[in-house]
């Protein structure tokens, strides 16, 4: 039965993964972390992650253009890496996002996105 730690271990097994965390995006707080974080600060990274998710959720027109069209992923690419955010949908009230930081050279965006989708689903699906 995969728990939070197991989920993060699996995330680190994604090719090119440098760091991973699960972030509560209402409060910008890292529920669980592993590996490296930008600037070696998981808490600052989580706060930033939360702002990005909230911006996408509330201040853009991409989300909720159609009813029940929920935000799934956010992908930010930089010259050196990929930052993938995958929303974790739980039945109970929570606002969680799975964050994985990938190395640009070793990481494969498509593979990582598919793996993260499965991880986020497995975390909550019985």
């Amino acid at each position, binding site marked *: 039965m*995969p728990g939070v730690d*197991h989920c993060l271990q699996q995330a680190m097994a994604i090719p090119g993964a440098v760091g991973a965390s699960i972030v509560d995006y209402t*409060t910008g*707080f890292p*529920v669980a972390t592993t590996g490296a974080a930008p600037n070696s600060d998981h808490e600052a990274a989580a706060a930033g992650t939360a702002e990005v998710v909230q911006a996408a959720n509330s201040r853009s027109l991409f989300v909720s253009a159609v009813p029940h069209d929920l935000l799934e992923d956010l992908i930010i690419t930089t010259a050196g890496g990929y930052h993938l955010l995958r929303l974790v949908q739980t*039945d109970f*009230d*929570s606002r969680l996002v799975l964050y994985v930081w990938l190395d640009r050279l070793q990481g494969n965006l498509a593979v990582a996105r598919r793996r993260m989708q499965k991880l986020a689903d497995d975390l909550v699906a019985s």
Partner: protein
Amino acid sequence: MTPSKTAAPTRLLTQVTGERQTGALVVGGHPGGAVYILEGRVIYAESPSAPGVGELLTSSGRLSGRTWQSALDLGTSTARVGRLLVEQGHLTQGELELCVLGAAYDAAYFALAPASAPVEFIGGATHWLGPVVHIDPAAINREVRRRCRMLDEIFPDSRVDTAAVSPVARPPRERVTLTALQWELLVHADGQRTPADLALLLGKAGYATVQELRRLAALGLIELPPAPGDKPEFVRLPRARGTAVDAHRPVMRPDPPVVPVISGGRASLPSGPIAGSGTVAVPVLTSAAPISGAAPVNGGGSGGGPAVAPGSEDPPRQPAAEEITNHGTVYRPPRLARRKPGAKLPKEVAGDPPPVHTGTDEVLLKRIRTALRALR
């Protein structure tokens, strides 16, 4: 066990976790709460202002009330409710951990945020949920402080966190954009429910609720509570009602009752009270005051014997209203005026109408419903 004293809850948490103790840090005051510690690591926290794991899981429909209750029945004594739910396949380990983490941080905020509160440490206490997660207490302290700061950055008025929520009747701007949770809060705010009531009712995290309410306050969409009271009121006591009327001892009133009374037979009047000619729109009350000898209502001389109300001849109806007590004294209950069907009792008998509010009642009813479902 540390005796209860007023201190900073976060400091005591640092102290007891530094000593790698096991037990519960109980924080008093409003809203108060408890943080459960196992060998120096925080395993759970609860507070009346934050829905617990059970409320989150059942109010969202993730678990039926019955499932939750049976896990409680089975696992409470051995403190392994959480593990049972996973072992029985009702939850995944991931869901349980995320739910417990969320609930624990949420409650920890309410328990630990006060700068000083009566706190005590109960050594050896465990929580029935069992150890599901192990949280670094330093992370909790940091997070609590950060959450306080974040709220003040949104809108620096902590009265919003505790006062009953009432939306403004007219928004102060032409166009309003709301998040889903803000919408839910506004729809369910009825002027009586506090943020804690709303969080419990909707099954949302207490901190997220407070956060959205501060945002709504910043937007000018909810009424700001009136001038800061002396203390936040988390429990609304029922409104004081009029003094109860003792059924067996008629009231001594220095002044005549306010209800228009035409006593049963002024000596000058003919036997029939005026109500007999009742074509008047105003309901005419006949003898609303107790008129028997045992009820000296109009009698000014309280020092003497019971003053007999003038013309206390009883109409022959209601002979059964008299009671003879053991001592043989005749008791006549105060005779009430004849009322129209559906009319209210006279004010001095009925007291104030019961206060009407639904906030907590609804939450209570919901809990009872959950418990009853579990019994089915």
